[in-house]
């Protein structure tokens, strides 16, 4: 039977990566000297499973490497070796290395061996160290001896009476022996007691076999391998090649060994052909990795989610049946009412189904959070800072695709907090703070958003320094008066860095502007708030899911656009008396104590036939990055959930548009990207988040 092992690879990789994550987080919890047995066991089991699986599925590089890890962990687990900090560091490195190897294998590439070999040597150095009480590894298996010409063995097999209670069955062993060659069996029953004394559960029979086989003694030994301690077994070669006598093996516990010459006539084969070929079984080439395209990542879904989907599909089927029944009837007033009811139910069910399908892609944010304990540990060691990492809201769920893109910006922010935010223990003590700084990651839901906060209790942003740097870079003028929040906002400008030196941890050319850009690419936003000496908080807001959005349909000329509902602050009719011209063709609306620039969609997208008179149009006020702008539309249509289709994938990138959707009547409608639209309108200086007109100053604009 041949079984294609590659079908198990996906599961193997998935569980191995899970195992590595578990190892990593448990290792981080370990305190040498105070290790708890269950933690060690968990780590050991993970290593053990990876080794077993990789060996079985043919990833020998991984299994060889894991072997040393496992041996060390086993010794620690058994109390043969004391766990020290060096072990933990080395094991963490090994986890990284294994992760890299498995990633390569998953991508069907040859894993990098050098690091693994170096680490392996370090493990071996520890294992061979003088404080080891472990005996050296015994050889695993000898090459199978095979003779070209048949040899006859005499095998005596006398089970101890309790043999059956080990679950072994002599009958099957005899059957197996017979498969090795020509078998002659003598069952000896002289020890069977009288019926009265006979215990049906005991084995009284014993056997003598003569087996003529080309397979050699080890093949025979293998059959009795499991019962060597539960039986008296003697195997003696009693015929075959003179030239190459096989050494007699007589287990010490066998008193009645039989002389080699006994009973069976010696067979004398053609004596000149004595060259023994050691036939090695040719292993079929491993072509086993074909099913592991890394792009086909999978997610594990809780069975409750699947159950609820099945329920909902059931509901849908019932509704469908009901509707088709109505469809078959003659149309009457009552059937129309029933139809409407059915449609309403259909809408309800579809929405439920949709929400639940979306839930499938939702994973707890702990998938991202879990990498931070390690990161914080490594960085704080490098920086000689003492840091406590707090994780809150790890169970908050987030779309998997969002999650994947979130981790890089978060890593950047956490690194910044550790490097720039937190002070050294000495500085902290001098300020009367706890020498151990705290970095907190907090995730929670708020409205249709997920909010992630990265907080530290460090020194806060240095506004003076930021201001000076910004003046130096020409981002602001000397005389500009900015609020603290506005100054802090400057760190998100392209090319802005307050780090005096480019350190290993941060300042490697990736700035906060990239962080903001990445988060904005997810339709999210990031803000900072900070207080000198108390700490900083970065707040990331993200939509729960990427694929569906609540949209406001708006009419401009004969086109329908969609504005994300989440950005809309309010929609209103324009009071012309409150509109002023501020030059460059820009008009602003005074709304309470704010001035809202008016963006004309028909201008930006070159539509003819839109209503241009302000008193006949509507203004949709949207907020983006703390700025409010008004979008002029002819009419507000319905609000509905829309499925976002990528324009880039189907056509090309269009400035000011984040995607498209297909409406109920089949027409394609474009979804407005607010921040892109602001850029496109020329309202913002290129490369700057500042608006061209200062809209917050009350003076200067005639009301």
């Amino acid at each position: 039977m041949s079984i294609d092992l590659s079908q198990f690879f996906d599961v193997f990789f998935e569980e191995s990566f899970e195992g590595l994550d578990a190892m990593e987080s448990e290792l981080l919890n370990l305190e040498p000297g105070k290790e708890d047995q269950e933690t060690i066991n968990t780590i050991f089991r993970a290593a053990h499973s990876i080794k077993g699986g990789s060996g079985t599925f043919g990833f020998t590089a991984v299994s060889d490497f894991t072997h040393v890890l496992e041996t060390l962990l086993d010794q620690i687990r058994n109390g043969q070796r004391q766990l020290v900090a060096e072990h933990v560091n080395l094991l963490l490195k090994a986890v990284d290395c294994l992760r890299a190897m498995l990633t390569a294998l998953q991508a069907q590439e040859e894993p990098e061996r050098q690091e693994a070999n170096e680490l392996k040597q370090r493990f071996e150095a520890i294992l061979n160290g003088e404080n080891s009480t472990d005996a050296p590894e015994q050889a695993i298996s000898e090459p199978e001896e095979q003779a070209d010409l048949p040899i006859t063995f005499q095998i005596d097999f006398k089970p101890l009476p309790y043999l059956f209670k080990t679950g072994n069955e002599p009958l099957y062993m005899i059957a197996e022996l017979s498969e090795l060659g020509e078998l002659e069996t003598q069952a000896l029953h002289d020890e069977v007691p009288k019926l009265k004394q006979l215990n049906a559960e005991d084995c009284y029979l014993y056997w003598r076999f003569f087996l003529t086989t080309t397979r050699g003694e080890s093949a025979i030994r293998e059959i009795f391998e499991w019962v060597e301690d539960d039986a008296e077994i003697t195997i003696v070669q009693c015929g075959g090649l003179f030239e190459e006598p096989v050494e007699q093996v007589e287990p010490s516990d066998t008193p009645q060994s039989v002389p080699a010459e006994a009973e069976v006539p010696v067979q004398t084969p053609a004596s000149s052909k004595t060259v023994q070929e050691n036939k090695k079984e040719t292993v079929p080439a491993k072509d086993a990795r074909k099913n592991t395209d890394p792009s086909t990542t999978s997610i594990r879904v809780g069975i409750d989610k699947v159950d609820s989907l099945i329920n909902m599909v059931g509901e849908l089927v019932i509704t469908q049946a009901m509707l088709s029944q109505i469809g078959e009837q003659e149309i009457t007033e009552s059937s129309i009412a029933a139809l409407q009811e059915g449609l309403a139910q259909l809408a309800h069910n579809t929405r439920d189904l949709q929400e639940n399908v979306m839930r499938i892609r939702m994973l707890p944010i702990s998938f991202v959070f879990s990498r931070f304990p390690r990161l914080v540990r490594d960085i704080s060691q490098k920086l000689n800072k003492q840091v406590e990492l707090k994780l809150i809201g790890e169970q908050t769920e987030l779309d998997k695709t969002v999650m994947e893109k979130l981790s890089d910006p978060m890593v950047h922010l956490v690194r910044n907090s550790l490097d720039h935010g937190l002070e050294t223990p000495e500085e902290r003590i001098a300020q009367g703070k706890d020498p151990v700084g705290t970095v907190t990651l907090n995730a929670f839901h708020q409205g249709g958003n997920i909010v992630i906060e990265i907080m530290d209790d460090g020194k806060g942003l240095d506004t003076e320094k930021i201001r000076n740097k910004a003046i130096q870079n020409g981002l602001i003028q000397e005389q500009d008066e900015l609020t603290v929040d506005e100054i802090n906002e400057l760190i998100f400008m392209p090319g802005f860095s307050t780090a005096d030196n480019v350190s290993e941890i941060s300042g490697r050319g990736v700035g906060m502007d990239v962080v903001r850009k990445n988060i904005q690419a997810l339709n999210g936003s990031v803000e900072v708030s900070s207080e000198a000496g108390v700490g900083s908080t970065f707040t990331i807001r993200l939509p729960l899911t990427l694929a569906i959005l609540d949209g406001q349909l708006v009419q401009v000329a004969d086109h329908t656009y969609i504005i994300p509902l989440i950005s809309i602050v309010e929609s209103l009719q324009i009071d012309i008396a409150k509109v002023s011209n501020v030059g460059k063709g820009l008009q602003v609306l005074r709304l309470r104590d704010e001035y809202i620039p008016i963006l004309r969609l028909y201008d930006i997208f070159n539509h003819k036939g839109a209503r241009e008179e302000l008193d006949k149009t509507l203004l949709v006020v949207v907020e983006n990055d703390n700025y409010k702008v008004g979008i002029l539309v002819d009419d507000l249509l319905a609000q509905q959930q829309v499925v976002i289709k990528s324009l880039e994938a189907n056509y090309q990138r269009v400035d000011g548009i984040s995607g498209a959707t297909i409406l109920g009547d089949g027409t394609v409608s474009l979804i407005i990207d607010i921040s892109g639209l602001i850029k496109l309108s020329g309202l913002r200086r290129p490369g700057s988040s500042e608006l061209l007109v200062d809209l917050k100053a009350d003076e200067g604009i005639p009301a």
Partner: protein
Amino acid sequence: MKKILAVDDSASMRQMVGFTLKKAGFDVVEAKDGSEALNLAKQQGFDAVISDVNMPVMDGITLIRELRSLPDYKFTPLLMLTTESGLDKKSEGKAAGATGWIVKPFNPEQLLAVLKKVIR
């Protein structure tokens, strides 16, 4: 059809063992640790049990000891899956009542060959 209980905390191993045995015509029930296996074994009869040694909740050796003490499993083949580095577990397993062991890594053919020693 002979019914086999396959116990392993690794899903890929479980799948591999399960798939191999099913293809060879066995009826297979899978369990992810010793405790789950023990409960299953108490509810339904099995012709053989193949169990990993290192598992959370209840390890393989404890499972074998518990099973062997049940009247229904007095003579049942109980095989343990062990790795070459865990060969010292062998004697511990035997003492607990294991029939034999299969050394990891193994391929499906080896598994079936080994199984032939105890069940036909």
